[in-house]
C-alpha cells in the first residue's frame, strides 16, 4: 500500500497544477474531482471493475499534466484523420481547441458546435446545467481525474426539432510531444425531437506514449434521435481511458458505434440510462487488438423506466498475445416493466496466446421483462472454412472472407458511408498484418 501511495505522489503534486479560472461552479467541480482522485487513487486489480486490467503502467508513468501547446499543424497533417468528410469538424490538439483546423461555420441556426472552453463562457447556463451531472466520479478515479483537469473539449447543442443532415466530427489529436496527459471533455445536448450524428475520433502520433483520459456526457432529449460514433485509433504506444455517460429521455433513440483499434491499453466505459418510457438504445462495438495490447470494454445499460428496448452487439478480433475484457451490465429497475434487452458478445481469437474475459452481468428487479445475452469465443468455424474451400477459395481467402464477414456485421451498421469505408480500410490493413504474423508463426 505504501508503494501505491508513493506512486501517487507525483499525481497528487500534478493536481496542484490543475487549471484554475472559469466560473465558480467549474472551479468547485474541479476541486471536488481533485479531492476525490486524491482519496481514490488509481484502481487496482482487486476491484471487480478492474480485475483484468492493470493500470500500473499509467500510474507509474510520469505525464506532464499540462498538455504542451502543439506546434502549428496544417490541413495536411490532419488529412489522414478526417474520416467522415464531414463539412463540420471540431479539432482539438493535445486537448486544446485548434481553431485553424476546425470548420465550425455554416451550421443551421441554433446549433452550437465548438470548443467547450468557449461554451463555458458563451453558453454558461446550458453548460452549467448539464456539465458533470452525468459523469459521476464518486467511485471512478479516472473520471475524477478528468474532472479535476476539465478545461477544454467539445460542446454540441442541437436545438429542439432540428434535423441535422451532416454528421459533426470531433477530432482529438495528440502529438508526439514529451509524454503528457490530456483530459478532453465532451458535452452533447440533443434537443427534443432533434436528429443528429456525431463522430468522436481519437488519434495520435506515436513516439512518446501520451495518455488520453476522456469523458463524454450526452443528454438525449425526448423523442430525439442521436447516432454516436466513436473511433479510437490512438497511437500504438498511447493509453486511452474513456467514459461516456448517456441519459436518454422519454422515447429518445440513442445508438453508439464504438470502434477500438489503437492504443496499447484502451478502456472504454459506456453508461446509458434509459430514463423515460420508450427510450431505446443500441450499443454496437468492434475492437481489434494484437501484440501485447489490451482492450477493455465495460458497458452499463440502466433500464430505469418501462417499455425500453436495448440492443447490444460487441465483437472483437484478437491476435498476438492481446487481451480483451468485455463486461456488459444490464440493470432493470423495479419500475422498468416490459424491458426488452438483448446482449451479444463474440470474439475471434486468431492465435492461441490471445485471451478474452467476458462477462454478462444482469441485475433485474422487475418481473415482466425479457433479457437475453450470449457470448461466443473461439476460432473460425471449421465447417464454414471447409465449405468455402470446397468452392475453390484458398485457405487464406476463406479465412479472410469469414473474418471480414465477422467484422462486417458491425461495420455495416455505420450510417456515415465515408467513415465506414475508412474504418474498413484501417481494419483490413491491421488484420492483414496480424494474419501475416499468424502465417509466419
Amino acid at each position, binding site marked *: 500500500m505504501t508503494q501505491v501511495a508513493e506512486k501517487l505522489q507525483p499525481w497528487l503534486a500534478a493536481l496542484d497544477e490543475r487549471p484554475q479560472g472559469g466560473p465558480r461552479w467549474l472551479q468547485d467541480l474541479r476541486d471536488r474531482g481533485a479531492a476525490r482522485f486524491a482519496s481514490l487513487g488509481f484502481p487496482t486489480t482487486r476491484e471487480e471493475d478492474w480485475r483484468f486490467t492493470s493500470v500500473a503502467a499509467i500510474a507509474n508513468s510520469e505525464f506532464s499534466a499540462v498538455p504542451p501547446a502543439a506546434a502549428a499543424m496544417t490541413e495536411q497533417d490532419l488529412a489522414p484523420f478526417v474520416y467522415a468528410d464531414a463539412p463540420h469538424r471540431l479539432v482539438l490538439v493535445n486537448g486544446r481547441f485548434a481553431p485553424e483546423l476546425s470548420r465550425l461555420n455554416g451550421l443551421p441556426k441554433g446549433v452550437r458546435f465548438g470548443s467547450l472552453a468557449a461554451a463555458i463562457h458563451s453558453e454558461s447556463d446550458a453548460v452549467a446545467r448539464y456539465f458533470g451531472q452525468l459523469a459521476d466520479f464518486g467511485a471512478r478515479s479516472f473520471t475524477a481525474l478528468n474532472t479535476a483537469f476539465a478545461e477544454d473539449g467539445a460542446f454540441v447543442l442541437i436545438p429542439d426539432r432540428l434535423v441535422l443532415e451532416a454528421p459533426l466530427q470531433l477530432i482529438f489529436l495528440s502529438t508526439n510531444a514529451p509524454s503528457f496527459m490530456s483530459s478532453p471533455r465532451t458535452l452533447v445536448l440533443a434537443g427534443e425531437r432533434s436528429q443528429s450524428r456525431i463522430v468522436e475520433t481519437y488519434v495520435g502520433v506515436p513516439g512518446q506514449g501520451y495518455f488520453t483520459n476522456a469523458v463524454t456526457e450526452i443528454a438525449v432529449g425526448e423523442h430525439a434521435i442521436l447516432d454516436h460514433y466513436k473511433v479510437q485509433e490512438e497511437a500504438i504506444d498511447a493509453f486511452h481511458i474513456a467514459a461516456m455517460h448517456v441519459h436518454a429521455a422519454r422515447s429518445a433513440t440513442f445508438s453508439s458505434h464504438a470502434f477500438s483499434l489503437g492504443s496499447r491499453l484502451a478502456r472504454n466505459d459506456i453508461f446509458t440510462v434509459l430514463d423515460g418510457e420508450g427510450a431505446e438504445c443500441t450499443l454496437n462495438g468492434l475492437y481489434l487488438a494484437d501484440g501485447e495490447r489490451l482492450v477493455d470494454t465495460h458497458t452499463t445499460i440502466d433500464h430505469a423506466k418501462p417499455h425500453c428496448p436495448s440492443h447490444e452487439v460487441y465483437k472483437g478480433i484478437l491476435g498476438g498475445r492481446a487481451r480483451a475484457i468485455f463486461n456488459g451490465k444490464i440493470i432493470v429497475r423495479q419500475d422498468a416493466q416490459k424491458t426488452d434487452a438483448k446482449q451479444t458478445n463474440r470474439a475471434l481469437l486468431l492465435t492461441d496466446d490471445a485471451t478474452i474475459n467476458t462477462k454478462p452481468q444482469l441485475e433485474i428487479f422487475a418481473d415482466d421483462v425479457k433479457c437475453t445475452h450470449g457470448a461466443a469465443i473461439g476460432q473460425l468455424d471449421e465447417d464454414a472454412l*471447409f*465449405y468455402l474451400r*470446397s*468452392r*475453390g477459395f484458398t485457405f487464406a481467402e476463406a479465412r479472410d472472407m469469414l473474418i471480414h464477414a465477422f467484422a462486417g456485421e458491425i461495420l455495416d451498421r455505420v450510417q456515415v458511408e465515408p467513415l465506414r469505408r475508412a474504418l474498413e480500410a484501417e481494419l483490413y490493413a491491421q488484420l492483414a498484418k496480424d494474419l501475416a504474423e499468424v502465417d509466419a508463426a
Partner: protein
Amino acid sequence: MLDIKNLQVRAEDKEILKGIDLHVDAGEVHAIMGPNGSGKSTLARVLAGHPEYQVTAGEITYEGQDLLDMDPDERAREGVFMAFQYPVEIAGVNNAYFLKAAVNAKRKHLGQPELDAIEFMQLVREKAKLLEIDQQMLSRAVNEGFSGGEKKRNEIFQMALLEPKLSILDETDSGLDIDALKIVANGVNALRSPDRAIIVVTHYQRLLNYIVPDYVHVLSAGRIVKSGGKELALELEEKGYGWIETGAEPVRA
C-alpha cells in the same frame, strides 16, 4: 475420370471405409446407396477433401492426378464439386458476392477472363430460372435463414454456375418434398454431358427416378457389396437393405 482403389478411411480412430474400389468414366452417373452408417457420406466427403478424415490406405486418381494430394480448394478449382448434405450457413457473406467470387476463382485458375458484374448477372439469370432461385436468395447471406429446400437448391445452383467435371451429391434428396426434388433433379440433369460425371449418394431410390443412374453401387459397413444397373435401385427399394447386409433374400410375409 475417377479411379478409387482400395480406399480405407478412418475418422477419430473409427474405421469407416474398409477398401473401396470404384471407377467412374466421363459421361456416367453413378449412384451410391446404402443404409445409414454404411460410409457413403464419408466417401463423398473424402472426395471433397474434408479434413476430419484420415486416409489410411488406397489411392484416388482424378483426371490422372493424385486427388488425395490436393487441397480441397485445389480440387474444387480442378472441377470437383460436392453438394453438401448439410450446407453451411455463412453469416455476413452475401450469396451473390460469394457465387461471383467462386466462379471467378475457378475461371482465374483455368486461365479464363473473370466475369464482370453484368456478365455474372447474365449467367445467374440463365441458371437461376432452372433452379427457381429468386432475387431474395441471392441478396441474403449464404444459406442463412434458407429453408432446407432452398439450401439444397442453392447447392445445385452453385453446381450449375461452377460447371464441375465431377459432381458428388451427398444426400441431396434428404428433406426435400417432391416438387423441390424435381427442381433439383432438373438442375442436375441439365448438367449431364459426355464430359462430366456425377456421383449421387442417397439412401432412397426416389431421387433416382429423376436422375437416372448408369450404375448403382451398394455400400454396407464400409465396403461396396453389390454393383449393378439402375434396376438394382428398384430392387433395393422393394426389398430394403437387409438382404444385402445379411447376404440372404428377405422372407416375404
